[in-house]
């Protein structure tokens, strides 16, 4: 059998068609917008609450990429002149890094009329290159069948866990937001600050014999369900999601000192499609956000949003929680992780 040029080209064409149209690189251009979402119920909520009204108003299409902020930021960093994504869902710390690297566009009321209803501090926290649209609060989730009198504050939590009254499930350093919603929050409650984390590490040393660690949110629930832990540090919205799924034995408390606000940021990469502004405006819209909050059991940031009675009783008011200084934390985060690894190791 001989392989002539025609056969070679034919084989090449067949291979190319096998790879299919998906073989072409994805670029954020034209009348199709590439947006992002976390998986599961989150993705469905993004489609129903933001993509659907965007498509209805603009006539454009939006594809939803599932994944996580680190993945999306790497993809934009790899192709800053022609980013494969038009809208990024970001964690607050990565939003700061992306803004500092000048990879994102500025958010202004001229481009996004609904930005006028978002507290300015949330846009400032993204250095003006993004804003927060959704938030949860890290507090104390406990098993009602085991814990009759739960701790009402972080200080009480530390004392009673250290005394052996409870086994607590706390986030390990493998979980990205741990440095903020647990380390910073507990340290702040115990009198520390960004440059002095001694109160946190002293508290951990006192509690160490009565702690188990969760690497992902599902681990926490398993710790409580299996009886391995009695209570722990967890998010309000995730707790209410469990309750709605039929778990009637858990409850959540916002500690008296106030839990840390853990937000979800949105950003638009530079050189992404201008259609992204229309989509982002839908994400910041009060009606759309109210619908989104109802599905996910988390608070949203538009000040015009009116929650249902059920959700109003669940969402932690912003005034009762603390906004972590993400930019400052980003500066010292590596030192915190290093100290955690040396002194705690999990």
């Amino acid at each position, binding site marked *: 059998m001989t392989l002539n040029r025609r056969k070679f080209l034919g084989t090449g064409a067949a291979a190319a068609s096998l790879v299919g149209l998906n073989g072409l*690189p994805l670029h954020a251009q034209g009348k199709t917008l590439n947006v992002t979402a976390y998986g599961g119920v989150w993705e469905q909520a993004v489609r129903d609450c933001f993509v659907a009204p965007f498509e209805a108003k603009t006539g454009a299409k939006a594809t939803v990429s599932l994944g996580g902020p680190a993945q999306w930021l790497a*993809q934009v960093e790899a192709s800053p002149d022609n980013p494969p994504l038009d809208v990024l869902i970001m964690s607050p710390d990565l939003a700061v890094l992306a803004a500092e690297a000048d990879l994102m566009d500025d958010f202004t009321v001229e481009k996004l009329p609904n930005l006028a209803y978002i507290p300015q501090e949330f846009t400032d926290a993204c250095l003006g290159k993004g804003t927060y649209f959704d938030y949860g609060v890290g507090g104390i989730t406990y098993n009602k069948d085991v814990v009759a009198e739960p701790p009402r504050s972080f200080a009480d939590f530390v004392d009673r866990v250290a005394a052996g009254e409870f086994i607590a499930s706390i986030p390990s350093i493998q979980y990205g937001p741990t440095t903020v919603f647990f380390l910073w929050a507990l340290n702040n409650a115990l009198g520390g600050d960004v440059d002095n984390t001694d109160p946190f590490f002293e508290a951990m040393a006192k509690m160490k014999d009565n702690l188990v660690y969760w690497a992902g949110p599902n681990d926490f629930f398993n710790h409580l369900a299996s009886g391995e832990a009695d209570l722990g540090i967890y998010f309000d919205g995730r707790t209410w999601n469990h309750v709605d799924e039929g778990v009637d034995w858990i409850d959540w408390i916002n500690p008296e000192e106030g839990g840390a606000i853990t937000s979800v940021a949105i950003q638009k990469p530079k050189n992404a499609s201008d259609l992204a502004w229309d989509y982002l405006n839908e994400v910041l819209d009060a009606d759309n956000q109210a619908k989104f909050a109802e599905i996910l059991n988390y608070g949203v940031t538009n000040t015009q949003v009116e929650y249902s009675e059920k959700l109003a009783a669940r969402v932690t008011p912003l005034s009762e929680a603390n906004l972590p200084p993400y930019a400052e934390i980003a500066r010292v985060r590596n030192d915190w992780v290093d100290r955690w690894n040396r002194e705690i190791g999990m």
Partner: protein
Amino acid sequence: MRLSDWALWVFTIAFFIFMILPIAVVVVISFTSAGYASFPIPGWSLKWFARIFEYEPFMNSLWVSLKLGVIATAASCLLGVPAALYLSRSRSGWATAITAFMLSPLSMPMIVIGFASLFFLSRLGFGVSFLSLVIVHTVICLPYVIRTVTAVYRAIPPAYEEAAQILGASRLTVFREVTLPLIRPGIAAGSLFSFLTSFDNLPVSYFFGSAQTNTLPVVMLAYMEHQFDPSIAALSTLQLVFAVVALVVADRLYGIQKMTVAT
């Protein structure tokens, strides 16, 4: 039976139970009637298997994973088999170095390969695409084909091929009639490992994920982080069934024993 034989038998059974129990728990949880993962389960239901077929990203990403696994495995065989045949018989000092280089993806953290490949392929214009996924998955699958084919081919005496040539067979006929049938268990073992490596890969696929190119493990991770229902357990059970069926088919076609020897 001697005491040591009894001890070995008990140890083997205990180790088997230790290995199989966590998998068995996941399989049981996939049949739960509860809305969340817990063990023991309160009742039996197939609803989480139905959920897999209802949730569109699961099915789309399953198709991407299957397509990717097949193409990356085929590409690995096309590149890896000729390379393995040449490197096995070569007496050059370079052959050892080149073999080590071609096996090097096995010793590199996958996340480093994924991250570096994203930037490299983006600079080349491939970007976040299915073609990029095929290229990177071929790189990580190639060592399995080279390793298994090399092991089998080195065990075959060169006299077999020489005898065929002396009897007048052309190089192509020697390859088709003598070499290929003898190295087939190596190719089968390498292909099986390649496909399963590609199908299960998360760290590399993660960096090339998009609405069109997300693989099943990427979607499973994204789902697990924000959903608490047992559909991931149901999906894991299906994957387990799929892997067992693949092994049984491979056993029927080539014999697991021969493939184990090849590795």
